[in-house]
């Protein structure tokens, strides 16, 4: 906890929260939202195809969108770490934060399982997607929905966090 408190009071954290610069808190939050769009967006399109939407189109080329997901993931790992460090003690005490991290951890495992059981399946595009692939697509959609929900609710559950320089109320 002491380490977290010292990170929270570092010059960098203070800049993030209190500088008022558009590149600080607002810019990092924007990057976090773009990462969400890339990661969960591409993921949703892949999962919908696995579940049978646009089934006349081959599934194999959808694998090209996995790097888009990983780009989104890393944007959010970096921007999320900065947002966490800036408010470490409050975020750690927020029950929604733990739920969000749990959902993300399982969702990332789910990505690897989809690669293995769907995209590495030798029967890919030669017949319907096997049941395990469809189950993984459903769990993936549920886990990312859970991560987004818990992430949003972090602003409403637990102590107030965010940049005091800004009114973090609407749309944020």
């Amino acid at each position, binding site marked *: 906890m002491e380490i977290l408190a010292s990170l929270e009071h570092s010059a960098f954290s203070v800049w993030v929260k209190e500088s008022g610069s558009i590149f600080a808190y607002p810019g990092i939050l924007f990057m976090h939202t773009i990462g969400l769009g890339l990661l*969960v967006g591409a993921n*949703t399109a892949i999962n919908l195809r696995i579940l049978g939407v646009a089934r006349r189109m081959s599934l194999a080329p959808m694998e090209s969108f996995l790097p888009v997901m990983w780009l989104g993931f890393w944007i959010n790992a970096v921007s999320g770490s900065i947002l966490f460090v800036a408010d470490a003690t409050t975020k750690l005490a927020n029950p929604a934060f733990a739920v969000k991290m749990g959902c993300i951890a399982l969702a990332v495992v789910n990505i690897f399982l989809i690669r293995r059981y769907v995209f590495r399946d030798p029967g890919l595009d030669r017949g319907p997607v096997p049941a395990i692939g469809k189950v993984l697509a459903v769990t993936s959609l549920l886990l990312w929905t859970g991560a987004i929900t818990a992430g949003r609710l972090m*602003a409403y559950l637990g102590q107030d966090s965010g940049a005091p320089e800004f009114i973090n109320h609407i749309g944020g």
Partner: protein
Amino acid sequence: MLPFANWIHGTTVGWAVGGGVPWIWPACETLHFIGLALLVGCVGVFDLRLLGMAKGLQVEPLQRLMPWGIAGFVINFITGVMFFAGDPYQYINNTAFWMKMLFIGLAGANVMAFYAMGLNRRVEAIGAGEDAPTLAKIVAAVSLASWLGVVFWGRMMPFLGTSF
């Protein structure tokens, strides 16, 4: 704008979202982000294919993803109107809010241009491995850029523009 703001704030929805029913605002925020992922994901994948990514995808069936993107837009339109009804006064003088509306209009005009130029029918013929026409690529790039703008200005609403 003010009479409209007064009217919508006075409706039952305005009362409920504006604090009458406390859980509605956070629930709408959550749905607004889920709608964002649906919209940006389905539309973005379509745009990226036109721009040359995942060229193995045939474009005609790929359009089946579009109703899901439209569903995301509808979710966000409804929750967006609900936010506005709940607290219209923090939006009507907010520059970022009007910039967001402008970018939504731009994205909409871009979609209309896509249909008006008959590009929807031209891209349907694009098979696996084939390139999209330049005009379709331009529309796809404008689409990605305008949704990026929508997300940017949406995120900036609490931070930029007039204080509230």
